[in-house]
């Protein structure tokens, strides 16, 4: 019953037309709090992309080979969240061992990712739209890249905003939300290019 979309189309669509953050509102919490400087935005974006691809693949396999055959679909929320938490923990340990440099760059962001809605969101979208394995991989990769792109863009814009005269009541999250709104409008301009549902 998998929808008949070419994986590459799905990749483009999930980066631009249905950006996980700007169209589906997922991953807002860390998005707003981390987007203050470009360096950490980059680190977080990279970490989200990596974790997304790994957990989506794992969750797909678990869904297909464990939950559906055993008729335990209602347990999927708990299973998905455990898989995500465990993956993040494992990644943290592995990266710490293998590459201390990368750990310095990514390490502090990893725990934040467990509660990032985008990760769970991709797993749930993949389940509801019944993607195949390849489609899931490309969808997860695209969503991660889209999120990364959005947070980098916002961080860069925020740098400019810091120098701009913003009304007192609008400072802080208010102006950030307006900025995100304009970004979302720009991304809507891409729609019509590819459609995904």
């Amino acid at each position, binding site marked *: 019953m998998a929808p008949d979309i070419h994986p590459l189309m799905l990749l483009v669509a999930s980066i631009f037309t249905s950006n996980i953050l700007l169209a589906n509102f*997922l991953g*807002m919490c860390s998005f707003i709090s981390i987007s203050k400087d470009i360096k950490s935005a980059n680190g977080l974006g990279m970490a989200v992309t990596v974790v997304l691809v790994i957990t989506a693949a794992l969750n797909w396999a678990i869904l297909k080979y464990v939950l559906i055959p055993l008729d335990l679909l209602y347990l999927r*929320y*708990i299973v998905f969240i455990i898989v995500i938490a465990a993956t993040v923990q494992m990644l943290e340990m592995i990266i710490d061992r293998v590459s201390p440099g990368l750990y310095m760059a990514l390490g502090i962001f990893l725990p934040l990712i467990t*509660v990032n809605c985008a990760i769970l*969101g991709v797993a749930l979208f993949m389940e*509801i739209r019944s993607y195949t394995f390849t489609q899931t991989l490309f969808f997860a990769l695209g969503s991660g890249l889209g999120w990364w792109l959005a947070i980098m863009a916002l961080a860069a814009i925020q740098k400019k905003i810091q120098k701009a005269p913003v009304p007192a009541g*609008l400072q802080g*999250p208010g102006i950030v939300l307006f900025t995100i*709104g304009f970004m979302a409008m720009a991304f809507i301009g891409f729609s019509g290019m590819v459609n995904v549902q």
Partner: protein
Amino acid sequence: MADRPADILKDNLWFNNPVFIQILGICSTLAVTNNLTNTFIMSMGVMFVTGFSSFTVSVMKTLIPRKVRMIVQTLIIAFYVIILDILLRAYLPDISKALGPYVGLIITNCIIMGRAEAFGQSNGPLLSFWDGITSGLGYAWVLMAIAFVRELLGFGTLFGIPVLPTFIPRWTIMVMAPSAFFLMGGLLWIIKTIMLKKEANSGA
């Protein structure tokens, strides 16, 4: 921190409203705000989960080792979300379908974990339950306000009932994602201005 029920209510609805102060937890719910009915059901769901998970965390606070409390809290929340999902599917199948993945995403709603961690850990069960419910309520009214504007201007309806005459053009933008960001930003702007004014008055 206030500890009388009335103070908690006031705090959570206005002074310390989780949405205004920390922009927490809008991920899962902002997406459904183009329709009042869905927003209402979703907010009720969040209230239910916040209340009961704060209650459970508070009851179990002496049993949970501090080191693993995050994961235990997540599991408690997931437990209530599953109950909510099954209830919705049984009694409101249409809405459950429309909400899609967003019901499951209540698990990662930061408000719930935040309340359980900040309040449930250090207060009695009943007070924590009340705190959770009122936090959910504070969250609900903000989202309902946004949904009200979006549905009214986007579709000309409220709760699916047509209210605007047809000669008023519909704002397509209100149905789409960006409007939620704009309305949220605008609401924050108004509220922060009111708060700043109050502060200036009480300071002078």
